[in-house]
């Protein structure tokens, strides 16, 4: 129980601490220390959870079950590795006068605030607070996206802010509708607990189906914009490509997961109340559509970070598709895919950050011959791209195979689309990366590269690809029972 309090209070304490510290070097070291302690604290929740099941804290305001525990541990781990990387990255930026001290001060404050908001969103029991913290996480990252003050960065920040906040406000309307249906069921005495998840889950089967359907539409559009499903994805490539590398690692590694977590929370309710799989089908359609469109758009990307942000859209589409199929096996694969994807994607953005620092350009055709000029970095980039494109021993490939197998069993037509998508994505990714990795090296500024956190992530993905530790397997099974009713 204390571990849980610690995990939540640490980022709060961190934000206040960062407000106080002016010097960049101390701030980034504190950042690393805070995030590591936070990760260890979140690890301690797991044994507590394993021996006495899902529990609520602070008279039902916070609720921990298998599903959000997995994502909390994942979030804290990714924030820790990104903190290591951002320490080196920010110092380099300061050295080349890319950002001023004030901006790095803002960066660290917002970094801790973002972690606080995400952890709150994951652990809250109250769906209203879930909306508030989602809005808070968007607000805290807007300034970070526009950190570099270039024309494109400001434009990206503006678009990110407008599109996400408008989208999420629709989600708020959906939450209100859910709250209304809950109010009708609950007796007057508990009017305060209408929005509490643990209460709603028991009442879900007799919620009014019609209103729940409309609520889910608003929620899907709302949180869909945050996940980056295709018709609503336009902010994602701009935001991820213009923000600083640790920021884009966090954005694509964590924020998308949290949005998907929120959507699945509501999907469980909708499935219980509607009894037909309307929610699942909608998610399948959106997921598959974004998978194919993103895979096709991968072909023509000129900017290295845009390339990987489109690959994030593609993988998130695939994960939504997996959850949409709402079978025990596919949800298991979806969860596993979520973990593996966020690990790989954050490590890729760290490596890309290093590459951009060396070649100080994001245009793919200007980066040439990395293997010859920077062997470690070049090989890391090549292997990371191949991992995300799906090569054998790593996690992405295993989850792709299992998803395809499950999908063939359910509906072969969808499986055909999946196959074409895999191949197009593979072609798009490798075609663009290979010229920057092979060939004669262009002139680059030699500077210290820090890819140890990225390699740590990739090794974890390799281990996950081959063998899942029993604790994780047990957690995932509990989460699957929760999600697929």
């Amino acid at each position, binding site marked *: 129980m204390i571990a849980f309090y610690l995990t939540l209070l640490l980022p709060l304490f961190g934000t206040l601490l960062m407000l106080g510290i002016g010097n960049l070097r101390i701030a980034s070291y504190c950042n690393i220390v805070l995030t590591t302690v936070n990760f260890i604290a979140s690890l301690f929740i797991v044994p507590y959870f394993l021996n006495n099941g899902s529990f609520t804290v602070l008279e039902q305001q916070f609720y921990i079950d298998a599903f959000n525990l997995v994502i909390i541990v994942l979030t804290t781990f990714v924030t820790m590795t990104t903190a290591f990387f951002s320490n080196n990255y920010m110092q380099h930026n300061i050295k080349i006068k890319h950002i001023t001290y004030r901006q790095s001060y803002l960066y660290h404050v917002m970094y801790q605030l973002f972690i606080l908001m995400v952890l709150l969103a994951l652990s809250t029991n109250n769906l209203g607070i879930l909306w508030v913290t989602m809005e808070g996480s968007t607000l805290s990252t807007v300034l970070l996206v526009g950190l570099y003050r270039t024309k494109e960065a400001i434009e990206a920040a*503006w*678009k990110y802010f*407008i*599109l996400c906040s*408008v*989208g999420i406000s*629709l989600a708020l309307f959906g939450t209100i509708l859910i709250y209304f249906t809950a109010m009708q069921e609950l007796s007057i005495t508990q009017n305060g607990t209408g929005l509490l998840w643990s209460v709603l889950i028991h009442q879900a089967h007799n919620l009014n189906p019609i209103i729940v359907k*409309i609520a*889910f*539409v*608003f929620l*899907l*559009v709302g949180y869909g*914009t945050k996940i980056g499903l295709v*018709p*609503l994805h*336009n*902010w994602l490539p701009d935001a991820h490509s213009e923000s600083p590398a640790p920021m884009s690692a966090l954005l694509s590694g964590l924020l998308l997961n949290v949005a998907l977590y929120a959507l699945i929370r509501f999907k469980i309710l909708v499935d219980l109340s509607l009894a037909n799989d*309307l929610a699942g089908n*909608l998610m399948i359609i959106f997921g598959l559509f974004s998978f194919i*469109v993103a895979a*096709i*758009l*991968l*072909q*023509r990307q000129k900017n290295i970070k845009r390339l990987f942000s489109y690959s994030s859209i593609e993988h998130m589409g695939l994960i939504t598709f997996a959850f949409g199929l709402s079978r025990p096996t596919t949800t*298991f694969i979806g969860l596993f895919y979520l973990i593996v994807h966020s690990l790989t994607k954050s490590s890729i953005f760290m490596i890309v950050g290093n590459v951009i620092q060396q070649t100080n350009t994001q245009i793919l055709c200007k980066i040439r011959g990395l293997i010859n000029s920077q062997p470690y970095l070049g090989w890391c980039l090549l292997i990371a791209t*191949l991992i995300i494109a799906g*090569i*054998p*021993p790593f996690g992405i490939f*295993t989850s792709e*195979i*299992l998803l*395809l*197998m499950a999908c*063939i*069993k359910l509906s*072969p037509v969808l*499986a055909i689309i999946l*196959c074409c998508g*895999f*191949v*197009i994505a*593979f*072609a*798009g990714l*490798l*075609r663009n990366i*290979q*010229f920057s990795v*092979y*060939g*004669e090296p262009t002139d680059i500024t030699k500077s210290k590269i820090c890819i140890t956190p990225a390699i740590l992530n990739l090794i974890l993905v390799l281990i*996950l*690809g*081959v*063998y*899942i530790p029993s604790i994780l*397997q047990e957690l995932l099974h509990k989460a699957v029972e929760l999600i697929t009713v």
Partner: protein
Amino acid sequence: MKILLFLVVLTVLFSSVLSLVLHCFPRVLKTTFFSLLGISGFGACIAGLSVLITHQNISYQLCSAFPGLSLQFILDPLSGFFLTIIGIIVISISWYGPGYLREYEKDKSIALMSFFTGLFVSGMYLVLLANDVFSFMVAWELMSVSSYFLVAYHHENMANCQSAFLYLLMAQVGSVLILFAFGILIKFSDSGSMNFLDLHFIKISSDWANLAFFLAFFGFGMKTGIIPLHVWLPQAHPVAPSHISALMSGVMLKIAVYGFIRFTFGILGGICCLQWGITVLIFGVISSLLGVLYALMQHNLKRLLAYHSVENIGIIFIGLGLSLIAMKTGNPLLASLGLAAALYHCINHAIFKSLLFLGAGVILQQSREHNLERMGGLIKRMPYTAWCFLIGCISISALPPFNGFISEWLIFQTAFQTSVFLKNEFVIVILIAIAASLLALTAVLAATCFVKVYGVIFLGQERTSNMSQVRDPLFGMCLAMGFLSILCLMFGIFPTIIMSLLSVISLQLIGVQLPNTLDVFWLIPITSKISSYNSIFFLIGILTIGLFSYFLIRICFKRTKISMVNPWDCGFGGINSCMQYTATAFVMPLRRIFKFTWNVIEKTEKINSDISYQLHIQDWIWQYIYIPIEYLSLDVANKLAKLQGGNIRIYLVYEFIILILLLWVVT
């Protein structure tokens, strides 16, 4: 035996990891890596042969991460046979490697190459041993990705990277197709288990089986290089270092053939229908004919050999097609003969193709020259390699004493017997007749091509000056080539031993054993009344006559003098090297007759008194299938990019429309 199997796979993996560790001093690394590789190859041979001889399978189970999914491995006669193929080639490469990599030590890092070679060989082992879909796919992808790195080893010029990318992309497409085929099978297996053995007993309707078969055929075809899908092969193999391209074209194509055999005969054994056999036969014939026709026109030695791999794979698929037809029309004996012929050609092709690639490697290493037109007269400078290369050329053009002829002869026998057996199916007999004659045409064209290659490279006069420092290679390389050429001869002279081993496989897959004759010499496919071939008497007969006539002439015409003169120059003056027939001239008649198969671009310009002649041979398929696909994908991407217009109001309009649409859908 199980420990031996472990030993084989683990030594390769250990050697690849070791090579990363020792990367700072290449000489030690080179010797240790190749010796470990040799040991594992030798172990593989023993394991394979032991299974073939003692028929009992070795199976092993490894539990893995996911629920209800365990990696199963099995070594049965079929995979044992292919394990021996890998073993033989890996042994010869382990001798060849150190000598060949001598020049690589200075600039390039050998550690990376040996790391990926280790992974590549272990991937191939695991593909053979895999007994369930998951481990098969993992090993398959491991094999193609590690060979991608090997192909992209010389990544200085962009053409290599482009062909490496094409190679990996087509391997990826192939593996997705195979995955889909397996998926269909799993869909029908009630227990949902991925094990090959359970998949064999599934109840599947015929049109699903058709879909699965054709998917698997094009998936594996993509990897073996059947004609429409062969485009990556002539670009990827010549680019890799020679011993790797020997490993790739000698062995990797066979692994893909193994996969196909495992899928069609192993899993779908019971439910095959006639169209399968016919399509395989037609594709086999087309790819063998077009493969050799394209090979004729090549100037780059290694590209020529790569095209020949396409041709030989076509021949293997002809054998498989015939056996499928025979199996469907109810004659299992002929089916097992066809399968045995195809497998026999697999091992033959593995041996003589690796011999030729290793020979090509020696030529390239010594003369630094890829283009045939600039070589000539090398036999005088490196006689040993010349003779080994000659044996390779003779066996690849399927001429009697050597192993190429045996498998071709067996395929002809299957063709004759199936046509005799299927007297009343009018269409099939004509198809088999045309296939057999086109196979003969391919054999002759292969002979023409290798006469050209051998004549232009080794015989005649030197065409350029830099042939002067060409010498016979180091002992290791000579040993490898010698070992392979002796094997070519042995497989040509003692076919009955191999056939008895192959009949064990056909017993396992088709259930009918070939009538193995008792004595060692007589190769009698079905009954001696129909046809028989005794390779020992044949060879003894020719040798006795040859030696007898040689000594007879030497004794009774001792006194005649032998003197060396300049060749006849019609009295005009000294013969110089450019008067010789070049490779292009040699195949000019065939080019004019078969001109519809290539996209021939010939230009002769006359620039102030000196005439320049340019000839470009392009592949129709590349122009009419692959380039349009590329443009199509880019166009679709550009059109879709309109979605990201840049104006925030348009994005909001998208959101608005989606909201309205969903609301409308929900009500």
